[in-house]
């Protein structure tokens, strides 16, 4: 029974990871850059929820405000920091992204100080199901993440913008020749990724209410790991990778001997996977053309 509970916990944190990983993987697939600041967008979303809930007390309003603010922030960051570097070396873009991540963290600390803030979103209690006690937030997270993923997949497959996104990720030059505005698609991608980050921030606060300026850093890096495990650039891959990572984490926390090394184990899996299969579980192989 305990194993089942662990697995369900793992599924729920895997859902959160998958949501963050989706943001990484979409940006990577379309803008061909690793958005290091993605994890910190989660943190900004968390603080927006904190402020809005302080004003209104309504968690749903908080979530909406966070989504709105994160979308605006994501688009602004893309315009100011990443867009001028389109066509420059990947190393330059990567360093700028690290700079943005650092900037967001330090600004948040300057405004909200370093002491953790408590954000009690809602106490939903536990649910008894077949003799298992499962916290309600786990179920909410799981259901919401599944809904979001399904909506996103449908969006990408059936709308004009979604298909344009696929086209840009396949071949940017050809997409441009077909009349797709690449800049607009990249902006939309950043907006969607940031909205997903805001949702992820909401679910993370539901799980543990303490909010600091580095709250997004570690989950961000781990979610990137998830995206790589699933195969970067692939939306189902991000989901699979996130859930695999969540399950590994939940199981590793349960085994007392290796529990303190959980982070190390996850990163070790990443390194080994990259050595054996750099394209991830669902990724496609790409030949480098000269």
């Amino acid at each position: 029974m305990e194993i089942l509970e662990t697995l369900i916990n793992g599924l729920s944190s895997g859902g959160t990871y998958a949501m963050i990983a989706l943001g990484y993987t979409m940006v990577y697939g379309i803008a061909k850059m690793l958005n290091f600041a993605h994890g910190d967008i989660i943190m900004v979303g968390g603080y927006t929820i904190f402020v809005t809930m302080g004003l209104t007390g309504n968690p749903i309003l908080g979530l909406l405000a966070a989504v709105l603010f994160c979308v605006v922030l994501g688009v602004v960051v893309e315009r100011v920091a990443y867009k001028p570097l389109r066509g420059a070396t990947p190393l330059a873009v990567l360093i700028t992204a690290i700079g943005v991540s650092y900037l967001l963290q330090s600004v948040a600390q300057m405004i909200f100080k370093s002491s953790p803030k408590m954000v009690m979103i809602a106490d939903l209690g536990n649910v008894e199901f077949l003799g298992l006690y499962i916290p309600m937030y786990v179920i909410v997270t799981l259901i919401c993440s599944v809904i979001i993923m399904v909506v996103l997949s449908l969006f990408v497959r059936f709308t004009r913008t979604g298909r344009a996104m696929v086209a840009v990720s396949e071949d940017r030059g050809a997409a441009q020749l077909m009349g797709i505005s690449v800049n607009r698609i990249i902006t939309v991608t950043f907006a969607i990724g940031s909205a997903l980050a805001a949702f992820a921030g909401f679910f993370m606060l539901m799980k543990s209410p303490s909010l600091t300026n580095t709250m997004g850093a570690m989950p961000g890096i781990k979610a990137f790991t998830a995206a790589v495990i699933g195969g970067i650039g692939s939306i189902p891959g991000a989901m699979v990778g996130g859930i695999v990572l969540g399950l590994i984490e939940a199981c590793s926390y349960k085994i007392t001997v290796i529990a303190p090394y959980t982070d190390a184990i996850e990163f070790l899996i990443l390194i080994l996977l990259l050595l054996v299969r750099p394209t991830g579980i669902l990724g496609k192989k790409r030949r480098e053309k000269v």
Partner: protein
Amino acid sequence: MTEKLKRLKWKNFLNCVVVAAFTLVFGVLSLTGSLNGSSIILIERIAISILLAVSLSVVVGFLGELSLGHAGFMCIGAYLGGKAAALLDPVLGTGVLSLLISLLVGGVCAAVCGLIIGLPALRLRGDYLAIVTLAFGEIVRSLFMNSSDESFGGALGLETPRFDKQSLFIYAFLLVLLCLVVIQNLLRSKHGRAITAIRDNEIAARATGINVTYYKLLVFSVSAFFAGLAGVLYSFSNFTVQSGKFGYNYSIEILVMVVLGGMGSINGSMISAALITFLDVNLQTLLTGDMAVLKNFLYALILIGLVLYNNAPALKGFREKYRLRAVMERIRERKPDPSKERDDEAKWDRVPTKIDMDEVLSVSPLKSQGDETSEPGEEERP
């Protein structure tokens, strides 16, 4: 010709001479007892930062790969070197011999780890490699943090014997000197040109017969070796080594030094490492509590601003017009010395970059003829 050769050599080792001069001056000052404790600590920290920045600069600026785990190599050096020193302490005491053995232990262990991290670097590039190095740094930190109390002190940190305060910085500067000589000789040799060729175009470098595997592993292990040495120095200048110090943030701090100094410039890295460490130590006492974060804010702005300025394609024209070298050349062109001018003289001091080569190759024969007849600089000559 021989005169010119001599001058060139002298210029190449100017930074070594400067470092040696500093070492001498500080040595004399410390012998006369006119250096106080805080400035000695500052000097030690500057030497450690220079070691770290120069070694990272080889990977980032010359090999063109981003390493976010440089603090991890330093961590290995600090823990293993510190442990070696603690074990040697009852036998040898904390003398020069124990320092040397610890340096060797820490440096070699870090270099071996660099070799291991270089292995994924063979298959991965750019973003993936950055994440792998970051993951490596976190793994190292987590392993030392969760170690048992007897082995590496666990969360409390490893207690290390402290070296004689009045002379450690001299050895630190000697190590900086060693690092400069080794790395500059490496980069100026045939091997250095192979490394920059890999940075500019790996596939083309491979096609011309450069052993990419060998050079990547070489660069990673050399860089890790010197970061390990910096770690050992750190453990000797402190009573305890704590794993919290060597996090992701510290790696970023080193990266800021390299970016601020200019990618692919050893002297620049040295100057910015000294400058940032100096500011860091002084700001530490000025900014306390939550204001300490202002420092990180500044780092972030420096990183973004510099990278945008140096790399944005839209600013290319502006950069080329107002670059220091371009401005200097314009000043020099006004008064050329005709006796020293030879048209068959190639500019050996400047290794052409990929962009330069593209420009050279794309010039049409008709246009190049026109260029030869009317050099823009020659017309203005009085």
